[in-house]
């Protein structure tokens, strides 16, 4: 029966493969008749504008696919490598370095017929080595927003923001709101001081007097209370919308938000710095149509790209989506102050470098910025550390090794295994045993296949990546180089920041703290709620399970908000306490010290995790017979003695697996660490998984190195689970034996 269904499955798969191969072939043969596929990450008005523009192009049918922005580059790369990618796609120019190095884009050729029609900065952004790799569509950068209620006219100098006010701001309001912990937003200041992130040869340039001055300036803005701390985009929007910030530095998204809400606002180019006399110059992003190698070969695709970059399409976009065109001949309307301001700003912005090295700048720069802003470090040392981090991430990947020794070892192992199998197969008894258990194999084979395909293969593939280096698509074998580099802390101080051992210690500490709190709270509540004396305990149970039912990232973000030093609920509580008791407690900057940041993380994770232990406790308690507790009562035990000497030992065998599971979850609790502290301060609260994530996704896609982390995490967990089980068996083999025999 099973065998037959397997055959059927096999036949179906085979048929499917043949058909798809056939379809592929027919498409190739008839390439010119194929519709054009276009990928983009637009939403809302921009998406509508794109559809509108495309509907006016009659030459050939265009299929569009809106891909979420976060997954855009990864999806694009994977699809193009598999030959399933689009013919052309719209993306920001700063990804070109990455795309070019992976041969995902081709020069646009005659799609760009009149380069002079485009603004010079736009052309600079898409040109590489004399070739154009995109047709510019629009440009985006930040500018200065002001609230006309507070501000007479935008000032010339940044230092003169105060003087531009009609009257002093009330307490609780800020002069200026911008994402000051974000290196992208800091770029405007840095450029104003004459600094930059990268030099012309992809070297780290966020150093020296200009960089230090920019950091100190940013810090002083916070120290003077003119700028809110740790503001993210959402907070900037909220503060400006609610009139609690006189000025804001933000992009077209804020303009769209304010216009939609009909909130009056003014906008102008960023002011100058009195210190240098130079204007603040933000980073400029050019959105462009890019062609995949396959698309670039098709003339109708190039024609579409030309059309999208053309005057007519640009006008449509400007009218429908209110974006600033990258063309010279499409100028904003005389009355549209917003677009005019952005165009003016773009003219004096700095085109963001698109080289691969830029990817390695963001994280070190952000860390340095936050260190200085929270006054944990002076500008000089913070920047030097950032330089070291940049160099570490940019370090050339390990040299290729020959896989021969590994293959030999593998071959040897397999030989040994087959030899042993052969030896056993000669044993008649063994053969008989196999023959007898054949029917049993038929029953489990589908489960074995399913687990093999769904669990074992991905696990092995992931582990295999740890032996490779390089970008996806062109990975090469490096043997155990990643593991060596891991256990030697990349050649640095074994107990230095970011070393594997330090992160491991933090992870273990994090797990232990969580476990203790989960158990203490979960057990107490479970015991309390299992007692029949409590009124309305069904209600409490539901209420207490809610933290578990809410998606963990939602909870994590909510808790992160509560721990904000200026606007968080915890600070509100402290103020309230101060008011009631007349104390002078200072609000705590939770994420500026290791101890408090870890506390915040643990508090969040305890909130998320105690319901599990509570529910398991309640379930375990139902297995404790009432008569046994009554016997203890009659024997003279107090309530506490009953709990400690009877209930807890009796539920222990049931609780242990749950606790072990909880420990594993906590050990790998990426969401909380990443979303609440985000590793602050300075990566100190990062645990192994979040560190692995950073190597894979924010430090230049070093998947091999990240996979090495994953493999080590796997072995750590597997090992400790094994030893925990052994220890439990030995310590309580007798208790475990009776777990079922309670009567």
């Amino acid at each position, binding site marked *: 029966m099973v065998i037959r269904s397997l055959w059927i499955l096999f036949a179906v798969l085979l048929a499917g493969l043949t058909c798809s191969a056939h379809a592929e072939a027919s498409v190739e043969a008839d390439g010119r008749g194929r519709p054009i596929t276009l990928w983009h990450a637009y939403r809302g008005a921009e998406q509508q504008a794109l559809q509108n523009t495309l509907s006016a192009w009659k030459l050939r049918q265009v299929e569009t696919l809106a891909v979420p922005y976060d997954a855009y580059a990864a999806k694009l790369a994977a699809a193009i490598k598999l030959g399933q990618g689009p013919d052309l796609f719209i993306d920001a120019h700063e990804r070109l370095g990455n795309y070019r190095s992976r041969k995902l884009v081709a020069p646009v050729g005659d799609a760009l017929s009149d380069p002079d029609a485009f603004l010079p900065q736009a052309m600079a952004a898409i040109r590489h080595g004399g070739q154009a790799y995109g047709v510019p569509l629009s440009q985006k950068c930040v500018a200065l927003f002001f609230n006309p209620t507070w501000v007479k006219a935008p000032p010339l100098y940044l230092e003169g923001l105060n003087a531009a006010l009609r009257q002093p701001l009330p307490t609780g309001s800020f002069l200026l709101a911008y994402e000051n912990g974000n290196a992208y937003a800091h770029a405007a200041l840095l450029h104003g001081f004459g600094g930059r992130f990268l030099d012309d040869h992809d070297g780290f340039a966020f150093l020296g007097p200009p960089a230090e001055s920019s950091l100190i300036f940013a810090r002083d803005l916070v120290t003077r209370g003119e700028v809110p701390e740790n503001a993210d985009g959402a907070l900037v929007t909220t503060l400006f919308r609610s009139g609690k910030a006189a000025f804001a530095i933000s992009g077209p998204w804020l303009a769209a938000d304010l216009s939609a809400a009909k909130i009056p606002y003014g906008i102008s180019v960023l002011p100058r710095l009195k210190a240098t006399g130079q204007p603040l110059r933000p980073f400029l992003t050019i959105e462009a149509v890019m062609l995949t190698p396959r698309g670039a070969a098709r003339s109708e695709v190039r024609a579409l790209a030309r059309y999208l970059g053309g005057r007519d399409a640009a006008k449509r976009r400007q009218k429908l989506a209110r974006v600033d065109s990258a063309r010279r001949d499409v100028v904003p309307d005389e009355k549209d102050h917003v677009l005019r301001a952005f165009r003016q700003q773009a003219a004096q912005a700095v085109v963001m470098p698109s080289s691969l090295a830029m990817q390695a700048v963001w994280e070190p720069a952000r860390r340095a910025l936050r260190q200085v802003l929270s006054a944990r470090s002076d500008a000089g040392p913070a920047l030097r550390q950032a330089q070291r981090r940049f160099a570490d991430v940019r370090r050339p990947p390990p040299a290729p090794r020959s896989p021969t020794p590994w293959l030999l070892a593998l071959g040897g192992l397999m030989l040994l295994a087959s030899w042993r199998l052969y030896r056993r197969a000669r044993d008649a008894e063994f053969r008989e045993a196999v023959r007898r258990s054949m029917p049993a194999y038929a029953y489990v084979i589908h489960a074995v296949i399913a687990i093999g395909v769904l669990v074992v293969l991905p696990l092995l593939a992931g582990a295999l990546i740890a032996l490779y280096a390089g970008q996806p698509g062109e990975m090469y074998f490096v043997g155990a180089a990643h593991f060596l580099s891991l256990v030697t802390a990349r050649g640095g101080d074994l107990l230095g920041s970011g070393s594997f051992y330090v992160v491991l210690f933090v992870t273990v500490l994090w797990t232990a703290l969580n476990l203790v709190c989960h158990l203490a709270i979960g057990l107490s509540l479970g015991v309390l709620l299992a007692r029949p004396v409590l009124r309305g305990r069904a209600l409490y149970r539901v209420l207490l399970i809610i933290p578990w039912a809410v998606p963990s990232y939602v909870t994590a973000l909510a808790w992160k908000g509560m721990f904000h030093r200026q606007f968080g609920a915890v600070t509100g509580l402290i103020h309230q306490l101060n008011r009631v008791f007349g104390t002078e407690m200072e609000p705590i900057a939770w994420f500026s010290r290791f101890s408090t940041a870890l506390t915040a993380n643990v508090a969040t994770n305890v909130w998320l995790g105690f319901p599990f232990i509570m529910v398991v406790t309640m379930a375990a308690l139902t297995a404790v017979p009432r008569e*046994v507790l009554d016997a203890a009562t*009659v*024997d*003279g035990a107090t309530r506490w003695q009953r709990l400690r000497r*009877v209930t807890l030992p*009796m539920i222990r065998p049931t609780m242990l697996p749950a606790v072990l599971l909880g420990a594993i979850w906590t050990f790998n609790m990426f969401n909380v660490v990443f979303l609440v502290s985000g590793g602050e301060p300075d990566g100190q609260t990062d645990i192994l998984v979040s560190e692995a994530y950073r190597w894979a996704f924010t430090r230049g896609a070093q998947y091999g190195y990240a996979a090495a982390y994953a493999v080590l995490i796997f072995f750590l967990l597997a090992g400790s689970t094994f030893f925990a089980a052994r220890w439990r068996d030995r310590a309580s083999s007798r208790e475990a034996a009776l777990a079922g025999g309670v009567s």
Partner: protein
Amino acid sequence: MAAITVRDLVKRFGDTTVLDGVSLEVPDGAFGVLVGPSGCGKSTLLRLLAGLEEPTAGRILFGERDVTDAEPRDRDIAMVFQSYALYPHLSVEKNLAFGLEIRKVDPDEIRDRVATVGDMLGLTTLLQRMPSELSGGQRQRVAMGRAIVRRPEVFMFDEPLSNLDAALRGQVRVDIRRLHSELQTTSVYVTHDQVEAMTLADVMFVMNEGKIEQAGAPLTIFNRPATRFVAGFLGSPPMSFIDAKIAHSSEGCVARIVAKEDELCLPLDPSVYREALADGQPVVLGLRPHEIRVVDSAAPLRARVLLSEKLGSETHVYASLAGTEITVRVDGELSLQEGQELGLDIEAAAIHLFDPETGKSWW
């Protein structure tokens, strides 16, 4: 040691009244047995005595001491539960020692006392085992040992034998009796098994629906049941009941059983009854199976055999007497056919009379 006195005890769980004014007294050193059908409130009464539940009203006294509001640990009692309620995570030895350790008894003394009790109950070789490694009978003995080792003022047993097989039950019953005569500790024993009740009790309390129907020495209760319920509950096979009317005639007082087809008269012994029975008074006759004798079929009292159960030493015959089913106990040798006519003889003094309305006996 102390006598147990219970006065007007009431226990309600929400709207359901489980105990409805129970009063009883177990003298110092006596073995009191609470017996009654399932759900009548025996366990509840015992749990109240132990302090595991709080009474809604009424008082409980141990000797002179009012313990109604005392915590269980201040009552100095030990209890054996129906499920034994051994601590599954502790060895037999630790199970025995648990109550002593809680009470901070000196470790040396604990060891002595555990050893003594282990000896007494034949548990010495089992001391290191876990409860899950014991048979039902062994667990039962550990549960007993756990109570004995405490040397309490009062022992309480809640159906401690109901999970044992018949043979073992008989043996442990004897053991309990022997232990009690050795220790002389006041005990309260709950059971729904009348054999246990009859054999163990110094003083017996028959309960029904939250009330005590009758209290007294077992034999007294058996011979002079105060109510139709008690009469029916005690005795195996149970007493047969027949509706009848009193008739005064020349031969004295008779009970006339009127049935569809015929009419029977049973002579009564008026000297047995405290009150004179009025002519025409409706009554319920109670006949114990062993007090009906089978005589030759020419006797005036005749019944037709419906079914007979041969138990070996005796046979229970279910027969129809004037349309009412009665049970007769006869010798095991006697062989009877279904439908056969029997002549019966019933001694006047052996007939119990009950009021059909109240169920009270006409003693």
